[in-house]
């Protein structure tokens, strides 16, 4: 019981929960309002409130999920709360009850202020291609696929790993999203180090990355342009096979691969 309360509190308080609380206030408002539309919607609101009570804040469910090691999955069901529907029902009722332009402006202004978040809009990105993935990932995948080396084993910075396999699954990566998934889990320490050098370290240890990549049969390394000085990777037997606006694609020399 304590667990679920603590968990719910965490979810609601720490994860931008103000939407949830605003929704609760609006639910109460719809419940108590004398507006015609709100009175009609009362039933739907009652159903949603019951759903919240029985599904979203249910200690028994949380206990079951915890026993199945799926407590994280339980948190995900908070996504199902139809917050925008509650907001819309409330605003529609208000607009229908107080039919004036001023009400409309006030309501719209309040709601926009209430739901606006500094991150809003950031994740909405103009599509650069029909696949709707980062164009640089597409270009880099194309460069690698057009190259004549057989194995397409690649080390890339984190931001590219998100899109590159979705576009070209023949490309295989040393580590996936947030380094949580690794191609060789048995070399975890070394892969963590490479992840650090590629993504976090401003002055990466090029020698370590270059030698490790060759030693474990990976063939391609994609570096951010400003992280590697010209000619530096070439010292460790790599060739440049292409570049984009922000990245350079290196490949182990043919002689080293024995091809």
């Amino acid at each position, binding site marked *: 019981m304590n667990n679920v309360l603590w968990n719910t509190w965490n*979810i609601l308080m720490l*994860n*931008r*929960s103000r*939407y*949830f609380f605003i929704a609760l206030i609006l639910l109460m408002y719809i419940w108590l309002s004398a507006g015609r*539309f709100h009175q*009609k919607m009362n*039933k*739907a609101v*009652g*159903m949603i409130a*019951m*759903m919240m*009570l*029985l*599904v979203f804040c249910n200690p028994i*469910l949380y206990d079951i999920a915890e026993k199945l090691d799926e407590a994280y999955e339980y948190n*995900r*069901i*908070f*996504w*199902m709360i139809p*917050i*925008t*529907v509650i907001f*819309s029902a409330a*605003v*529609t009722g208000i*607009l*229908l009850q107080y039919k004036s332009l001023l009400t409309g402006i006030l309501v719209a202004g309040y709601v926009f202020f209430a*739901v606006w*978040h500094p991150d*809003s*809009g*950031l994740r*909405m990105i*103009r*599509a650069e291609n*029909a*696949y*709707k*993935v980062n164009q640089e990932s597409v270009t880099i995948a194309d460069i690698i696929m057009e190259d004549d080396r057989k194995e397409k084993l690649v080390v890339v910075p984190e931001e590219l*790993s*998100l899109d590159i*396999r*979705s*576009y070209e*699954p*023949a490309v*295989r*990566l*040393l*580590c996936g*999203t*947030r380094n*949580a*998934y*690794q*191609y060789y889990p048995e070399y975890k320490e070394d892969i963590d180090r490479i992840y650090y050098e590629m993504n976090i370290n401003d002055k990466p240890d090029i020698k370590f990355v270059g030698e490790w990549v060759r030693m474990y049969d990976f063939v391609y390394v994609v570096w951010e342009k400003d992280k590697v000085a010209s000619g530096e990777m070439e010292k460790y037997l790599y060739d440049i096979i292409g570049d984009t606006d922000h990245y350079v694609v290196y490949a182990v020399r043919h002689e080293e691969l024995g091809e």
Partner: protein
Amino acid sequence: MYNLYKLLLFIVCFCMAVIMTGSCFYAGKREILLSVLKGLTVVISVIYLTSVILVNRNMSTAFLGAAESMIVLGMVLAALIYAYRKKSLQAFFRACFQRIKETRVIEAAALAAVLLATGYLMFFYHQGYYQDTYAMSIAADAYQSNQLYAANPYTGAPEDTMPWKLRLSPYILVIAGIARVLSIHPLILFHIGMVALVIPCVYLAWYAVASEFTEDVKERCLFLIILLIFNGIFVDYDLNANKGLLLAAWQGKIIVANAGLPLILFFTIRVYEKKEAKYWFYILCTIVASTFFSVTGIVLCPLLLMSLMAYYGLSCWMHKWKRKQKE
């Protein structure tokens, strides 16, 4: 341009299947939308039941795609013949044309707003949400290797055990199969094709729910337009799937939260308010259809149903209690 024709083919075939199947359930002039929603749940349920069998028998991606395409086309044909013989097809389309003639300005505005939002998201914008990688890589792998699951989606390292969630909710694999049949990249099918189908379906479902509460078309349409605006403002994903609708409409969880929930709400209202027991069948179909998209559907939809039943049970008990008090 060639891809666009294939996309159109995918969208038109699915819509045809839904409309034709829906026309079999047509029961009167005021039930056009209801028929379409019934058709939608039945079509997806059939796709789910057949695809689960095929996926668990480890068929190839191309076979899965071809089988599902044939099933959908078969359903169109069967529904066409059945509805034509029952004369419901003619009545359905006559009612549709009549309804289009009677369309009011606000209805046209709401429809235009939904279609504009859909078109805008289909062709101009995408979202940068990292969890997309998992589903998209599985689909791309299945599409390219012709094996349903052969590699870890994040790294590409060989793997032969398909996750149980994928076996239970094969939506990603079915789309990959259809992509293989159409020979179009699955990313295009997800990011454009599914957006074109999901967003109108969601608003159709909420419109149906609103129509259960208010007879006034103006009120329903206003509610729909405001809902569209709110979904547009909430462009953040965390905590609430409603917010992700306009950003990641192709994701299974989003589809369950945005389309499964209103459909269950709608059919439950029908069961309890209109005392029509046959809607239990469509509730079951909605649960099955939700499970197709995301494994959470198999748990959440029955839970939602139970809570709605509890609500009705409670209100019935309170009604009786009040009557007793009066006596």
